[in-house]
Structure formats: C-alpha cells, structure tokens
C-alpha cells in the first residue's frame, strides 16, 4: 500500500500547488533595469517581404524592391500603472534596414537599461521630429554620419529620408520603371513625422534577468494602399520632397505597424 499512499500524497501536493499561484505583487523594481528587444519584421500583406519578389497592389500595379529602410525614433513604453519610460533621446533613433535582417527576416532593435516594469503599450515615431532636427547638425551626434552613409539624408537643409524604398514597378502602361519612395520632412517647412502607439497583446515583463521581445510587423503594402490608395503611374513612382506625395505616404505609414505578439523570457 506504500505506493498508493505516496501517490495520493503526491496528488495532494499537485492540487495544493496548482491552487497557490498567487503572485507576489510587492516586488520592488526601483533602480532595476533590463534589456528589451524589438523585432521589426517586414511583410507585404500576409507574405514575408523578400527582396526582388514582385508584389501586386491596387490599380493593377506591381512592385519589387532592392532597398527597404526606414527610420524609427522616440521609442517609449507605458507600464500597467500608466508610467512612461522614454529611451534616452541621444540613443533613441534607429535605421531599420531589411538588408540587415536575420534568417527569419527580422531586424533587431535592442534597448539596454530599460526600467524594470510590466509594459502594456509601445509608441515610436516614424522619422525624425522637429525637436531633434532643431538640435542642428552638431546635435545629431553620430547618427548624422550613419544616416548619410545609409543614404537616409537628402542634405542637411532638406533633412532626413524617413523611408527609402528603391526598386521597380510595372503597370498597365509601363514595365520595370524606376520606383523610389523617399518620404521625409522637408527642412522645417513640411513635417511628416508621425508617432505610432500600439497596445501590447500581452504584458511585457522587463527585469534584470528577463529580456522580453516585442514582435512588430510592418506591412509595406500599407504605404501604397493604406488610408489612401496611390497609383505609381499617377505620380507616386517618384516620391521625394514634394509636400503632397510625401504627406500621403507619411499618413499611410501610420497604419503599417502592428504588434503581432510578445515573448517573455
């Protein structure tokens, strides 16, 4: 009968332990920081984005790209108590370059020394805001050099390119025509900087010993078929410093990001 007694004892343990999962909410997080990874994953609709692959869009047009980059800045996280953690400004600007993606097609942005908290919302800007631009060339730190090297600047006077899509498109009338979507603010005269706020599907738990990941999907198709559907044939194959076309693309870009899931480790 010993085995029987042991097994019933074990069963009792299991039942007791499964009922006692009350969390310790008195955890003191002051001064504790952790690492948070944001994975940017570019897609076109429900397809993973791949260079050189032709994707169809509205107006019977298709496109394929050889360059896909955009600027992300001002990443901020809001916790379950409503407090917002803003990543330090001087480090809070990133170039998301599809060419730097890993095997899985993901581009990692690693944030160090993030305040330990339970985060429920993330926000970030697409591009460079006027405050950062107003710091002048000196105030950009190393990022100015990086952006220039990556072809994400027009000139200092005109400013940063927020998106850089280079490739070709085909339509009813043309085949493999050049496609260049270089959207940005234009100096201080056109402001195309927009912030995107996304609530997280699960709480992201940042601790000294936990480095969670937020998986952000960027749907490139939304740039052309977002709030406004644009036609390459109709002036949107070459988007540069024009206030109208960059404005439309910038507005469409607000809807291209979503958080697919989070990983807590």
């Amino acid at each position: 009968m010993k085995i029987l007694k042991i097994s019933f004892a074990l069963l009792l343990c299991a039942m007791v332990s499964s009922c006692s999962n009350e969390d310790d909410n008195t955890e003191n997080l002051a001064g504790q920081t952790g690492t948070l990874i944001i994975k940017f994953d570019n897609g076109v609709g429900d397809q993973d984005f791949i260079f050189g692959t032709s994707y169809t869009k509205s107006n019977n047009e298709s496109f394929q790209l050889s360059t896909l980059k955009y600027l992300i800045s001002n990443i901020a996280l809001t916790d379950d108590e409503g407090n917002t953690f803003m990543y330090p400004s001087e480090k809070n600007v990133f170039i998301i370059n599809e060419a730097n993606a890993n095997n899985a097609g993901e581009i990692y942005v690693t944030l160090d020394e993030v305040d330990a908290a339970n985060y429920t919302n993330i926000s970030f800007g697409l591009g460079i805001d006027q405050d950062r631009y107003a710091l002048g060339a000196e105030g950009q730190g190393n990022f100015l050099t990086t952006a220039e090297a990556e072809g994400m600047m027009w000139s200092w006077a005109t400013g940063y390119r927020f998106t850089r899509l280079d490739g070709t498109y085909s339509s009813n009338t043309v085949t493999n025509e050049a496609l260049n979507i270089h959207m940005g603010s234009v100096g201080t005269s056109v402001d195309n900087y927009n912030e995107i706020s996304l609530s997280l599907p699960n709480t992201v738990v940042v601790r000294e010993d936990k480095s969670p990941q937020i998986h952000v999907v960027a749907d490139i198709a939304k740039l052309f078929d977002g709030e406004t559907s644009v036609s390459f044939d109709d002036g949107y194959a070459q988007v540069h410093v024009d206030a109208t076309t960059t404005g439309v693309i910038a507005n469409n870009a607000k809807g291209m990001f979503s958080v697919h899931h989070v990983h807590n480790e």
Partner: protein
Amino acid sequence: MNDSQNIKLIHLITILFLLLVSLSQASTIDPPTSYFSQYEFDFDCDLCGCSTGSGSFGFGTLNNANFVGVRYINQQFESKNGVFTNSPVSKETFNTYQLWAQVPINTSFYVSVNVPYQDLNRSLNDTNENLNGIGDASIIAWYKLPFYKKVSNEEFEATEKENSGHSLQFGLGVKLPTGKFEEALVDRVNPGFQVGTGSLDAIFSLGYNYAADKFGVNTLLSYYLKGENKNEYKFGNQFSYATKFFTAFAVKKAMIMPFLGVSGDVFNKIEQYGETINDTNGAILNSSLGTEFVVNRCIFGVNYTLPVSQNLFGGNVKSKNRLSLYFNFAL
C-alpha cells in the same frame, strides 16, 4: 546524446526495472484466467515533447493488467517559423523512449508508472537543433471497479460471481517536473519543444473496458490540471480521450490482436505571468491502427497514428504521424 548520459540513462532504467520487478513480486498477483479476462490499457501520459505530445496516445498491453516494458514513440511535427503565410516551416521529430509499468497493489488497486527519455530534433533550412534528457515522469494510482453478471436467486450463493467483461477504472495521478523546462525555448513556434514542462500536474482519469471472447473495447478519458512552473509559465489544461476496438486470433503459439481506434486532445491556452497567450490552444483528432503479438509473457506492440483533423497553436503547428513500438513483459 553523449556517452555519460547514455550510461546514466541505462543505470536509471536498470534500477527502476529492478525496483518494479521486486515490487510486483512482493504483491499478490491474480493470474489471468484468459487473455481477455483481465486487461487494461496503460496510463499513457506523454505530455512531454511536451504539450502537443499527448495522453491520447492510446494504450499498451491489451491483455495483461500488469507489466513492465519499454516503449519507443516517434512523433513528427511541422511548425511555421514566422508570422507570415510564406514563413519557412521547421520539421520536428520527437523521439521518446519510455520505461513504463503497471504494477498491482491488490485486487482492486494498481499503479502505473512512466519514465520517459526525450530526444527532440528540429530542423529549419540547414540548421538543426537537438534537445535531450529525462522527461517528465508520471505515476497514477488506479482503482478498478469490475461489473459482475447478475446471479439469479436459484443459484447457489457459494458460486463465485462471474465477471461480465465490463469494468471501470478511476485514476488519480501526478506528472512530476523531472524534465528540464528551458524558458528560452518558449520563443519557439512549437512550445512542445521541451523535454519537460517544469510543472507538477494533476491527472484525473476514467477508463472503461469491455472484453468478450473475440472482441474488446478500451476507452480512456483523462484531464490534466497543469501547474505553473517556476518561470510563471503554465501549459494549458488538457483533456485527452482515446478509444480502441480490438479483436484476437491465435496463430500457432502466438496471439495476434489487431486494433482500430480514435484519440484526441483538447488544449487550453498557455498562460504566462497570469495572462493567456493567443494562439496556444487547440485540438486534434487522430485515427490509430495497430496490433499486438503475444507469445507467452512477451507482448510486442505497434501503433500507427494519423491525424484526422487538427488546429494546434493557431494552425501554426501541424502534427504529422506518430509511430509507437513497445515491448512488455507481463507480470
């Protein structure tokens, strides 16, 4: 698997084997009066390899209540490795080597024990990953309630009650966190890619058996109440069902017992930090086909399982087929 692990495993299996044999010999065993008079299914909780591995695996020895044996299970999965419809698919092969036994306590109670060793492989493009180690052991105590044929008043009261062939079994057990749970692996698309859940789980089972001369049925319903592990990660509670129809015929000195069946699992969502995670619930229905060969006290079994319908982890994980081979020695 390196050599030292191999040796450790062999030692463990040997010790457990000897322990079980000595335990079984210490208790009284009613010899089976016929092949069908007393059979059980095994308790079969293959939770590891891990959450998609299931307790619906079916059964073991058809015709003997008590045994010690070994079983090998091969399971194949395909998991979408990314968030897009054209994301690459990884293939997972889960090999499980189990030492299992069913040991009588007395005429009404018995215990089933299962100690798995997991060898899990995953390949994506040209990258291969391997994870191996002792999995989660489980132990269940069973109470068996046989049903007897009605005895008419005219018969002598001294006559022994005749077994009707129907019986119910009630099982209560635990799955122990003997396998290692690696938190880093929860990032994988298939959360079952673990040798252990790291949790202590309760198991509630109800079995029904019927056996006639040439025909039998085994049905097993199980519910797994899963505990939270130290990483505040909790696999979803699971309901498993399995039923098998079998027949038997003799060929020379051997008995051949083919069977057909259906089995399935229903999983709740995984929880972490007290929140449920999307796309972690699911259900699967399997058909199974197999046979046992019985020669004297040796039972060799083979069981092939193919999914009929499934929706696991938001459709991102697909169970392919499973093959199980076992060799049991009737006690």
